């Protein structure tokens, strides 16, 4: 089925798998299902997956660990589901690299909206950041970000995996180096007009991005926290042939 986004639903509850596969297929997606981590890997090994819907409480391997491992090997977006529903789970889930979190029970329509929103978010930019930014490459502090392939390379040339949300956030910082950006600005620039139910998710993403950039969270050199104001990306950034953020 060419052209359809492929969603992988990982949940040990057959009723949830059935509900989601039926609902998402009705709404134009190709859907695969798996009941545990082994099933998840089997589907991923077979071909392209555009988004993973991942339950946290799975037999054998915990969903949070699966999410972390998934993030280490791929940038496929992840929406976490969990009946645990604690705020700490939500935070840990986002820290482990999930792009969104939905507590159970949920209406499938809400999941559909979130799936669409995450796919939109990781694939596109708000209008004011479109065009040139889509293809631009950047160099900063011996790091290299390729715009078209969305690949990040460390100073020693190693490729560092980035989730879709992390890539978008990094590109925003790279376009506004040495300038304080408030949390609200970061949310607005990364998500356009979409609203986010999780106020702290931008902090989680910054925290994850720091880890990707090997930036010590206690004493960050690249992404510094400006108390009560937001974050500032401290580096000379070269975008294509242009140097940014130099007064």
């Amino acid at each position, binding site marked *: 089925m060419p052209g359809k986004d492929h969603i992988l639903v990982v949940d040990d*509850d057959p*009723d949830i798998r059935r*509900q989601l596969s*039926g609902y998402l297929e009705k709404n134009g997606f190709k859907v695969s299902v798996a009941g545990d981590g082994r099933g998840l890997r089997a589907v991923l090994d077979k071909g392209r997956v555009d988004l993973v819907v991942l339950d946290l409480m799975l037999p054998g391997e915990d969903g949070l660990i699966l999410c972390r491992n998934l993030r280490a090997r791929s940038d496929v977006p992840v929406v976490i589901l969990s009946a645990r529903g604690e705020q700490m789970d939500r935070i840990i889930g986002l820290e482990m690299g999930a792009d969104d979190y939905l507590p*159970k029970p949920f209406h499938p329509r809400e999941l559909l909206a979130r799936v669409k929103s995450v796919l939109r978010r990781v694939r596109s930019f708000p209008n004011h950041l479109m065009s040139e930014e889509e293809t631009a490459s950047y160099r900063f502090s011996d790091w290299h970000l390729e715009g078209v392939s969305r690949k990040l390379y460390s100073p020693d040339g190693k490729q560092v995996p980035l989730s879709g949300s992390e890539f978008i956030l990094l590109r925003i910082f790279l376009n506004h180096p040495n300038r304080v950006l408030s949390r609200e600005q970061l949310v607005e620039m990364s998500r356009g007009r979409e609203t986010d139910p999780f106020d702290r998710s931008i902090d989680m993403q910054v925290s994850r991005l720091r880890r990707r950039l090997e930036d010590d969270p206690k004493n960050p050199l690249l992404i510094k926290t400006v108390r009560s104001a937001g974050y500032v990306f401290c580096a000379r950034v070269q975008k294509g042939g242009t140097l940014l953020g130099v007064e």
Partner: protein
Amino acid sequence: MEKIVVHIDSDLEDIAPGYIENRHKDVAALKEALTANDLEVPKVLGHRMKGSGAGYGFDEVTEIGRRMEEAAKAGDGQSIEALTARLEDYLARVEIVYD
């Protein structure tokens, strides 16, 4: 017997009857587990019902599941038995209207 009318999204019309059918199977499995004094079955099924019921529109199933999972964790067989009976009664009375 008084019916309990539940309004469910017509999007779920194909799969809601199957969901109720599976809860009937849960009742049978729970009764069997109670006889065997097995608390793992009500814990797992309670957890699943908690996470899925309201998503289909069956809020009562979520509530029963939530309580059942708690009772199983507490080793409270009496509550599990009462909740199994409550689930069985609900399934016998529920009538689905698709909107």
